């Protein structure tokens, strides 16, 4: 009987009240924990949140925790004085005072926000007390903590804005909180999403809530798995883009310069659009909307990167070496097989090439030689461009991984954030070079007889593995 009751109790989701002074980022914390940009309203005004809103954290579709966002505590000093009025003798406990306050109508009118917050704390199993770590430990905060202590619920102080190291007074807060016997303090910046910050927050809650240990363990494990899967999905998107770009080839008659230029423009345009698409896919994957990056000085402008992919300056900005000067010069970002005509190739090769070309998809190399033989130039992205694409996309993924859903500022791509990649092109991309059939950017005619692109899948998977590995590695 008893055991059954306990089982039922543990099946109940853990109830968490998020409280704190006004404008410390309670709603932001919920946004980030729920990955929901649309949760509540966030601004730097005081008392932005005036109602109590809830969100459940699900694991495999089952709610395991319910978080309640409360209006900010604003006048704890007066409230504490007010609470003292309810004291009738020395046996009255703080808990009694709070209970009496909640019963009292008049008090609720005077302290409507505080009453809501306190009611949620009393209804919850644990309270997260959100702190703007840039603030000093003022008397009003001490009074808030005193009132919370009277609620007789475990409290996990959450230090927000700790990423602002120049102004955050993390040590000061920790010291003060320790004096109040609050030792399980979590640091969790709602704007800069620290991969492990969330996990540590749950772990702190776990230390105080032994009865919900299994629940929180499941939550931690699930969130870790999801994040890994998310990173993997992002790596797949980037790998897909890179293979498409690496295998993209445009042919143009070699002896007509105008057509070569047009083809070059065509290639650039295709790759640009492909990158744009990858960016959209990434934003979609991370549940960020257009408004997150369409700010004025964002990388994307009218569907194009502000820093054009084929601009040598962009390469420099993202630290990509362009190698030989010639390649970086006139046709920046493009490699041209300028050899045309069969004369330079020698007759036997030419015959073999012709055969290869006639045999169709059998040999991409043969096709290339055949094209040369017929006086065609092949245009494709050069290594530097592919590297730039890699670096830039990884920087974007990293920025997205670290972006809290509460961040009000538009997304900014920091070139310094770009991971340092090896000078060498990843091996799967080299494989893709010789496989026009692998690129979705090439005209369907080129891929019609390619058959099932099993090897492309393998190359994308290989490349995604490598990128995934890079992304998981902590930044130097």
């Amino acid at each position, binding site marked *: 009987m008893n055991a059954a009751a306990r089982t039922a109790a543990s099946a109940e989701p853990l109830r968490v009240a998020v409280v704190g*002074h*006004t*404008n410390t980022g309670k709603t932001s914390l919920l946004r980030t*924990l*729920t990955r*929901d940009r649309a*949760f509540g309203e966030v601004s*730097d005004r*005081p*008392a932005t949140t*005036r*109602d*109590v*809103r*809830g*969100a*459940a954290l*699900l*694991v*495999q*579709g089952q709610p395991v925790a319910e978080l309640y966002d409360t*209006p*900010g505590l*604003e*006048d*704890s*000093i*007066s409230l504490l004085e007010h609470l003292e009025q309810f004291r009738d003798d020395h046996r009255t406990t703080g808990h009694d005072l709070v209970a009496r306050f909640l019963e009292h109508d008049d008090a609720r*009118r*005077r302290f*409507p*926000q505080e009453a*809501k917050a306190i*009611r949620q704390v009393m209804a919850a199993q644990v309270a997260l007390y959100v702190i703007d770590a840039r603030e*000093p430990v*003022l*008397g*009003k905060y*001490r009074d808030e903590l005193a009132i919370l202590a009277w609620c007789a619920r475990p409290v996990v102080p959450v230090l927000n804005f700790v990423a602002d190291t*120049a*102004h955050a007074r993390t040590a000061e807060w920790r010291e003060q909180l320790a004096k109040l016997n609050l030792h399980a303090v979590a640091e969790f910046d709602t704007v800069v999403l620290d991969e492990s910050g969330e996990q540590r927050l749950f772990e702190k809650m776990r230390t105080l809530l032994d009865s919900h240990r299994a629940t929180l363990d499941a939550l931690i494990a*699930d969130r870790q798995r999801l994040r890994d*899967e*998310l990173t993997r*999905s*992002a790596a*797949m*998107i980037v790998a*897909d883009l890179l293979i498409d770009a690496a295998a993209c080839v445009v042919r143009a008659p070699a002896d007509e310069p105008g057509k070569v230029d047009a083809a070059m423009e065509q290639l650039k345009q295709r790759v640009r659009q492909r990158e744009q*698409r990858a960016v*959209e*896919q990434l934003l*979609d*994957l991370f*549940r960020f909307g257009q408004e997150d990056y369409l700010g004025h000085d964002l990388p994307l402008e009218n569907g194009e990167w502000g820093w054009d992919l084929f601009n040598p300056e962009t390469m420099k900005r993202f630290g990509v070496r362009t190698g030989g000067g010639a390649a970086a010069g006139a046709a920046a970002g493009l490699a041209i097989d300028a050899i045309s005509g069969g004369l330079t190739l020698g007759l036997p090769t030419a015959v073999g090439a012709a055969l290869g070309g006639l045999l169709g998809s059998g040999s991409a190399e043969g096709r290339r030689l055949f094209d040369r033989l017929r006086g065609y130039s092949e245009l494709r992205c050069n290594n530097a461009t592919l590297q730039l694409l890699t670096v830039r996309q990884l920087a974007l993924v990293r920025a997205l991984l670290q972006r809290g859903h509460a961040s009000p500022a538009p997304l900014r791509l920091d070139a310094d954030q770009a991971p340092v990649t090896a000078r060498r092109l990843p091996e799967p991309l080299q494989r893709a070079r010789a496989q026009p059939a692998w690129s979705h950017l090439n005209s369907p005619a080129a891929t*019609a007889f390619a*058959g*099932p692109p*099993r090897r492309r*899948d393998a190359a994308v998977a290989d490349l995604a593995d490598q990128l995934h590995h890079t992304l998981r590695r902590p930044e130097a």
Partner: protein
Amino acid sequence: MTDVDGHGETSSTRGRVLAEAVRAYEAAAPGGAGVDDRAAEAAGRAVGGDFERRLVARAAALPAAGKLSQALDRVTRAGKWAVVVGVVLMAVAGAGAARGAMAVSVDGGASGGGGISGGGGQTVNVFWALGALLGVQTLLLLGWLVAMVGWPGGAGQGSLGAAVLGAGRWLASRVDRSAEQLAAMEAVTGTLMRSGAGRWVFGLVSHALWAGFNVGCLVMLLVLLSVRHYTFAWETTILSPEAYVQLTQWLAALPGVLGLPAPTVEQVVATQAVAEAEALNEARWAWAGLLAGSLVCYGLAPRALLAVGCALAAWRAQRRWRLDVTLPGYGRLRERLMPTTRALGVVEGADVEGETEEALSQERRGEGRPVGPAAIVAVEVRSHEGVWPPVVDDVQWRDLGFVDDREGRRRVIEALEASEVEPAVLVVVCELAATPDRGTERYLGELRRTVTRSPLLLLTGGQALRERGDTEAIGRRLSQWRTLAERVGIDGDAVLDLDLDHATDASLRQLAQRLPRDQDTTTPPAAGHTRHLEAAFDRIVTHARQWQGPPDPPARSKLHREIAALYRSDGGGDAKALTKLLDVPTDFRGDWQSKVRNSASRVVDMLPPSLRLRPRWLAAGAASGALGCVAAATLLSPLAIAALPTWTAIGAAIAAAAQPRGGHTVSDVPQDADEALHSDDYTEAVDAAALFAMLLQLQGLGEATISRVLDRVLTDVDDTRRLTDADAVRRWLDELRHRFDVAFAEEVRA
């Protein structure tokens, strides 16, 4: 592709293929961003279970699912038809092959095709025929086995099956190039590749085709054997007959199990010679049996068995196959189909705005109090690094300190309420970066009620906010503070953004300008102008040392002039303050005597009532007022010197001013001009000069304050003391200065 469905398709596999088709379809759509169909997503969530299950359910619920499903059916049908056509063609080919094989005579070369040969029918090289029918396909079969074993990851792309299915795919793409069709084909091929079923399906098709070939062969063989008369023989040039005997026995072993006839050793040996072979009728029957039996056992049966095996393997691979949910098209759907959070909505609604507002009491406490120095208090200021209170020109602060907690708040309110004087202006310093909350608002409201005039709200720490780089935030914060100020009754223009830690001369001047300096409206927070009291008293002592006996009026006037000059020298505004204090005329023509008397009366008026009852102070006050007036006037304009009245006239003015008012009788006041300016010792001259100096030190604090300070300084002074020499003057002035400091400090504290 198709056969997949034919051989053990489960509904979930079909669902997954549809999901793949949807993914391909969405990826190929312009923009490739995928479709956001809420109804379908809801269906996906409703089905529950793991993410894949939800993906499948979502795909099935999409509007495009119908068309894609049809397209998948078409692809399936096309594949099936391709296989059927392939099998038929292979059967025909098999029939042809059988006919060709049976047309090869022992004499070498092909005989006349279908024509019946002259003799007793045709002679067939039995081993040649076997080789023709089984050789190539057996070699291919071995190749297939080698490929399957040696290259486990291979897709079997080069196989006949792949070719046939590729042809079917190609055909289908010729027939229908709609987006749905292309997506369906990509899904099917993709499924085959990713699930690993592809190689088995290709194998299955290959084996089915070869089985068809064998059936065609067998049928044709039986027809030929039925309608023709063949003589079987074999030949060799280099091999021994034993080898053929052995070979025959091996070949016959398997058909023998099935009960098919096989040539005996004698029959084999006998068949070597065509002539003999023709004679052996039983051998003919046995050889035909071996031929057909080999075709069944070594051609048809392995292919059929392998086809079944491949079908099983394909079915198993399909069953094991799961969607790769990290593929870009699926990852984006995770949160939609399998949300990690669910909004619980508003649990407790917001209150009606304004309900919380308490009626702000307009009652001001301590109305009508005299004005004291400006007061300054810091409310919840994070850190103040510079000097506290801030050094502002001429401002002597009443420092109320830093307020952070409940006790501090109460202390300051009580101090302000209990004070005898009202601060000329109450400067409340707050942190600009802090969020103005209701607690702060309430407290500022309380502070506001302790004073009658609007406090000055000084917002410090803006620099830190600027360092955070968000200038917009500063603007927003400032307007929030303004709103708060307005609500608690602080004037809008009394809100100042000034970082005290990063104050510049300009910003401090800005602050100084905001602090009222006009005595008539709000007394300037002055009294903080540079302290010259020591210098003034030193000057008095210096003069006293030079005096030979009691000083005469010109000497006293000179001393006053020097003291006035001290206070005038710092800052241009003080001369004006001086003239205001003593009501010094700016027009030096006319009745000088009444003007001097006016100034003398003014100082007397400023004396506290208790001093006015004491003749010595009455006289000293009148003298200091009159001499101060003269000093100020001569400082201000050389014209005044020329217009100065006689000392007698001044003495008369002093005597007139020193007359007690209100009917009080005071003895020992100067009754005439002579008496007023002459005395027995230094006492009166020093007292007047010291009073003058103290007045100047206190100027700007308002008359009430000056009066109060003077009262504290002089209230218990011994009026009988006599100053007869410079040393006594020195001692007295030291005491006076000490008294002044104590009194002033008390006043500031109050």
